[in-house]
């Protein structure tokens, strides 16, 4: 088909559906190099050979050895022909016949052909020069071709090797581009079908159909580059197209490299990448399905349990308020109250989990004093857990970190709550704040039974509840949220045992300090 597009002429030949070939009608530049340094040295070398041969011939002739003289001259002509090709060889042969005729054959210093002895060397010179030149030329061409072919196959091999590392469609074009140029092939673009449109790899550019993609220009030094395009074929249909951009043809250039072979390699790589993408999507989908199942399971348990208690208490109060003693009524009202708090904490946890999953933007962070927030949490936990003892060991007067105050409050509350619930009732929970190598550390340790080796690697996972799975308490989100938030503050959180035999739990939070640590002011009483 022939297309005419404003501003430029494009000839598109479509050979079957396999290959679109588009070529700019290019005014091929016929600037023949007339003269160059290389040619000059080459020619002077030939002249030297010619002169030496002529001298040798003259010497032989002088010593009255005419056959030797002719053979020497013949050797020189063959050497020049073999070295510099047919044209130089013939030129040398003609020059040789003149020199022979003028200087060597009788009558000396005169042109003229009188005998067969004169003609035979003349013919011999020319024939041998032509044959030698042609043979040498063919040899040189073959060697050059072999070199080009080797370079091309090495290129293909290199491309196929490097493409092994490609993990998505963008990589394929990028990696190949890095290995270019190969002769006239200077650049390429890959267009991959996504949702019915062609998407230029490495960019956001989208083209509704192959034609618009083909017409998208690529310029080099102001002038549009000519290109050839191929369809990227795969086992299950077409993946897209590849456009190879070609530099303008030079006189010395031979054929184009085998672009179809390169296109096939690219098609394979793109095919592999798309399969990888699909596999990754499938894994993500599976994981999100698993998460949904876990959330549903958790929601149905953790929402239903308090709701059941509330409903039982409320309906009980309503139906039997006349039969119940005041203390029974109070205890049922307390149940309602307590379970409401539990529901509230649980929904807050779910919300926090959602925040972690959707990512916590840095815009939500500001300068926060960890010690101030610890104070707030201690205040509220002392009211919630009036029987629990807390020992404070603050080595810093202030610890300013980059965080979010309410999120940090949640982190500390979650850890303290765990310590109170799982710790020992006789020993206090120790809260320690100190400077660390590159910031501050907050340690909260209890003297409870500790975390088992089995549970240790999992305690920061979503919905993980250590120990007894049947009588589980808590949502299994507390430490997950603590970890998610601390990491959003660019900190680290870890769990250790307090004693060597694995008793007690120590949760350690490390956060980078904004300002250098301020040592605790000495009490000035």
């Amino acid at each position: 088909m022939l297309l005419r597009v404003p501003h430029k002429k494009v000839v598109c030949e479509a050979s079957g559906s396999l290959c679109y070939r588009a070529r700019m009608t290019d005014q091929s530049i016929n600037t023949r190099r007339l003269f160059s340094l290389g040619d000059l040295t080459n020619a002077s070398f030939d002249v030297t050979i010619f002169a030496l041969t002529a001298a040798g011939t003259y010497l032989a002739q002088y010593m009255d050895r005419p056959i030797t003289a002719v053979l020497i001259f013949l050797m020189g002509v063959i050497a020049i022909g073999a070295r510099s090709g047919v044209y130089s060889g013939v030129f040398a042969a003609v020059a040789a016949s003149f020199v022979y005729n003028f200087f060597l054959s009788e009558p000396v210093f005169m042109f003229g052909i009188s005998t067969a002895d004169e003609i035979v060397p003349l013919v011999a010179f020319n024939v041998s020069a032509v044959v030698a030149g042609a043979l040498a030329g063919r040899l040189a061409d073959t060697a050059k071709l072999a070199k080009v072919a080797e370079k091309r196959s090495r290129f293909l091999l290199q491309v196929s090797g490097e493409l092994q590392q490609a993990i998505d469609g963008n990589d394929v074009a990028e990696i190949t581009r890095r290995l270019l140029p190969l002769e006239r092939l200077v650049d390429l673009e890959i267009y991959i079908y996504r949702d019915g449109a062609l998407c230029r790899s490495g960019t956001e550019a989208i083209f509704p159909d192959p034609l618009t993609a083909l017409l998208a220009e690529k310029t080099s030094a102001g002038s549009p580059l000519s290109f050839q395009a191929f369809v990227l074929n795969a086992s299950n249909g077409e993946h897209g197209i590849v456009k190879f951009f070609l530099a303008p043809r030079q006189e010395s250039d031979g054929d184009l490299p085998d672009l179809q072979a390169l296109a096939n390699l690219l098609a394979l790589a793109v095919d592999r990448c798309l399969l990888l993408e699909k596999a990754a999507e499938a894994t993500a989908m599976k994981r999100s399905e698993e998460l949904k199942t876990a959330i549903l399971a958790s929601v149905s348990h953790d929402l239903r349990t308090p709701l059941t208690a509330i409903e039982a208490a409320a309906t009980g109060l309503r139906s039997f308020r006349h039969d119940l003693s005041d203390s029974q009524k109070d205890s049922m009202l307390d149940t309602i109250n307590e379970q409401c708090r539990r529901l509230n904490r649980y929904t807050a946890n779910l919300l926090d989990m959602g925040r972690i999953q959707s990512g916590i933007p840095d815009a939500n962070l500001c300068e926060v004093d960890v010690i101030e927030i610890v104070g707030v949490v201690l205040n509220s936990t002392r009211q919630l857990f009036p029987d629990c003892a807390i020992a404070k060991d603050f080595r810093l007067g202030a610890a300013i970190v980059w965080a979010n105050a309410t999120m940090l409050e949640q982190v500390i509350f979650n850890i303290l709550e765990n310590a109170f619930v799982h710790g020992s009732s006789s020993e206090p929970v120790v809260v320690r704040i100190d400077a660390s190598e590159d910031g501050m550390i907050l340690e909260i340790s209890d003297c409870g039974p500790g975390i088992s080796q089995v549970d240790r690697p999992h305690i920061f996972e979503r919905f993980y509840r250590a120990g007894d799975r049947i009588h589980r308490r808590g949502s299994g989100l507390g430490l997950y949220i603590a970890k998610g938030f601390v990491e959003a503050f660019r900190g680290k959180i870890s769990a250790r045992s307090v004693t060597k035999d694995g008793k007690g739990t120590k949760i350690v939070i490390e956060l980078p300090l904004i300002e250098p640590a301020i040592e605790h002011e000495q009490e000035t009483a």
Partner: protein
Amino acid sequence: MRILIVDDEPAIIGTLIPVLSAQGHKVSSAGTIREALKEAESSDFDLILLDLGLPDGDGLEIISKLHQLTSANIIVLSARHLERDKIIALDEGADDYVDKPFGVGELLARLRVAQRRQELANQSAHDEFFSDQLYVHFRRREVRLLGEEIKLSPKEFVLLEALCRSGGQIVTQRKLLIAGWNDPSADSQYLRSYIALLRQKLEYDPSEPEMILTEPGVGYRISLGTQTLK
């Protein structure tokens, strides 16, 4: 007090009206922004409980309008984790907030604080603040902790005065920066340092303050102590 509850959840209105009425307050309710503005135009209130998520818009939008219409103290009902909303509401002119969900005890405590603040404001010469431990005389610049006089630097006093004048209601960092440095964009590090100094002088345990309370991410409030509230 005359109280207007602005909330679109019938269960909440249905619970709060009898509870607050039982406390001797006169309670009306509005379910939308439009109704709230109409109520505020037609009658005067001492206190408005304002839920931020309303069917016909964001409660934040009407705070300043409500202020023009009435002299009522405005308490915003907001979800705990939405600090930004709280700060906007307070900057718009709300006087305090209560985190949802809340217990009746918590709400009533805030109501008492609001009531006390209004009483303070109504006194023509509003010169004093007192809680069960702290006594501050603003004009004389006198601070007494359990009867004993405490020396404060001028900056410390200005900040303590700002906290005390709010009568136990929240004071945002911004308001404290304006009070202390006349510049809302001043480094909040200064504010933290001065609050720490005040706590050193006033608190029993400065690392676990009970008098100058931190509202994480929002600001500070002065505690009135348990006895004054009862």
